[in-house]
């Protein structure tokens, strides 16, 4: 059981191959209908996070002339990465490889049949569950370079980024590589490192590489639809139950713990942010509350099955305060244009969550033979690695793309007109005739 808890995602795969029997559920080499039903449900919930959750969350935050470009960038992530994942991404993440990246033994899932199991669920279901993570992660970055990246370079960027940044990190943490249970022993239950830090730290690199939007800090760029933002954030909250509790890959007690901590930390973050903003700014804002929900969800992601319910309150509280400081104080002071706060919420929240996993780890979750202090150092090491690897690899990709495409940005005129018209020949809101 301890083994099953301490290893996230594919860690359970490893446990399965070691033929460990999970208490109270089917033996590891036997299909469990309950686990399978929950994992199919979870997979659909994770897709809901991208479409329409994230699409509406980001879409509402931009100006009305760019909302379609955001929806399209999210949609095409599901299209492009959804195919890439089955063809090669899954193999690079969960294939037999080295410490850094998986091999090519699972190209096009040629190795699998309907009888293939991953733990107690069909491997096909495991592939799709992980595929939904691969779809949302590059889409999270959209917020950093929103309103100013042409569609063609974006298309190429996320295709390469998933293969060069996401798959290797997923392999290193969950696929038997050097960071996770088979390596340093870092704990990342549902993707604080793999999903949120990787996208958040890549996003800030991309935002700095592309430069600020025309008129940044000179003209107002308020969100064009806060109702869309709230609908999007709410759908993210709902979908995150599948993201976090689904990462146990079974419908068991640990999944139940992750289910509870996910929402408790998020509630705490909303409560904390609203109170802090009220005291600091004079009024509690709707946008603040919606941002807080996402910050809480991000923070608890790596920790959700490793902390107690009480611990999850501390994770959510810390996440809200730290993300608030980055979004409301550090970004305006520094002046960089991380347009929709991908770095401030996902990068910083993900790093906090990965650290908090060590700080607030419950005794039952601490891997055998590791002290509390040692686990914190391991978490810090994994945070440091991700904070360097993701943005450096992202910059290499972006420099290469600029050599191919020329500028990745639209012309000044097209940026003023908006990407909806200049890139897609469409308008979101058409006045009645």
């Amino acid at each position, binding site marked *: 059981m301890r083994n099953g808890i301490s290893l996230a995602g594919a860690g359970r795969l490893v446990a399965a191959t070691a033929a460990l029997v999970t208490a109270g559920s089917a033996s590891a080499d036997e299909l469990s209908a309950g686990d399978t039903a929950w994992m199919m449900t979870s997979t659909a919930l994770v897709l809901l996070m991208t479409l329409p959750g994230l699409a509406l969350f980001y879409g509402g935050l931009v100006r009305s002339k760019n909302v379609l470009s955001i929806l399209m960038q999210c949609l095409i992530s599901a299209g492009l990465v959804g195919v890439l994942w089955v063809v090669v991404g899954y193999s690079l993440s969960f294939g037999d490889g080295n410490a850094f990246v998986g091999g090519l033994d699972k190209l096009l899932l040629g190795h699998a049949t309907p009888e293939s199991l991953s733990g107690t669920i069909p491997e096909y279901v495991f592939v799709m569950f992980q595929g939904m993570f691969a779809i949302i992660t590059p889409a999270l970055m959209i917020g950093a370079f929103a309103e100013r990246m042409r569609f063609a370079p974006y298309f190429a960027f996320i295709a390469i980024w998933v293969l060069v940044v996401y798959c290797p990190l997923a392999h290193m943490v969950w696929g038997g590589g050097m960071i996770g249970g088979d390596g340093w022993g870092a704990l990342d239950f549902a993707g604080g490192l793999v999903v949120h830090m990787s996208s958040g730290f890549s996003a800030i690199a991309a935002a700095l590489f592309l430069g600020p939007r025309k008129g940044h800090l000179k003209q*107002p*760029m*308020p*969100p064009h639809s806060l109702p869309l933002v709230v609908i999007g954030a709410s759908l993210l909250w709902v979908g995150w139950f599948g993201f976090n509790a689904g990462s146990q890959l079974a419908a068991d007690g640990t999944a139940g713990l992750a289910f509870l901590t996910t929402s408790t930390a998020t509630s705490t973050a909303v409560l904390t942010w609203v109170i802090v903003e009220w005291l600091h*700014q004079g*009024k509690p*804002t709707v*946008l*603040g509350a919606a*941002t807080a929900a996402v910050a809480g969800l991000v923070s608890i992601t790596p920790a959700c099955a490793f902390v107690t319910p009480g611990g999850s309150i501390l994770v959510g509280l810390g996440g809200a305060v730290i993300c608030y400081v980055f*979004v*409301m*104080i550090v*970004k*305006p002071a520094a002046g960089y244009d991380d347009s929709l*706060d991908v770095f401030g919420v996902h990068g910083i929240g993900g790093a906090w969550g990965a650290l908090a996993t060590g700080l607030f780890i419950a005794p039952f979750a601490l891997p055998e033979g590791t002290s509390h202090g040692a686990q914190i150092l391991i978490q810090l090491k994994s945070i440091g690695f991700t904070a360097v690897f993701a943005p450096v690899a992202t910059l290499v990709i972006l420099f290469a793309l600029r050599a191919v495409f020329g500028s990745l940005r639209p012309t000044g005129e097209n940026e003023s007109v908006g990407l909806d018209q200049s890139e897609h020949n469409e308008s979101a809101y058409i006045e009645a005739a």
Partner: protein
Amino acid sequence: MKKIEAIIKPFKLDEVREALSEAGVSGLTVTESKGFGRQKGHTEHYRGAEYQVDFLPKIRVEVVVRDDQADAIVAKIAEAANTQKIGDGKIFVMDVADAVRIRTGERGEAAL
């Protein structure tokens, strides 16, 4: 003929329209517009970014009347649109050289 152009608060439109009907005005044009005067705007906050919203929503009412009606109608509008607060708007009166009813070709006051 005079053209009377009134910039008013949006929620006062119904009262102004009724007052104009009572005064015998048979047609008018309304446009949604934005602007500011002494009322100035207000500030909004989005994730720490403070925006000054200068332009407030207003309604522009345009009506063309006979010279002898103009004073009474201006008074009616001023009465109906008044809330005693800044931001109530302004009324402008200007001369109109001619008017044409497109359907019949009538000109001048007959076209009103």
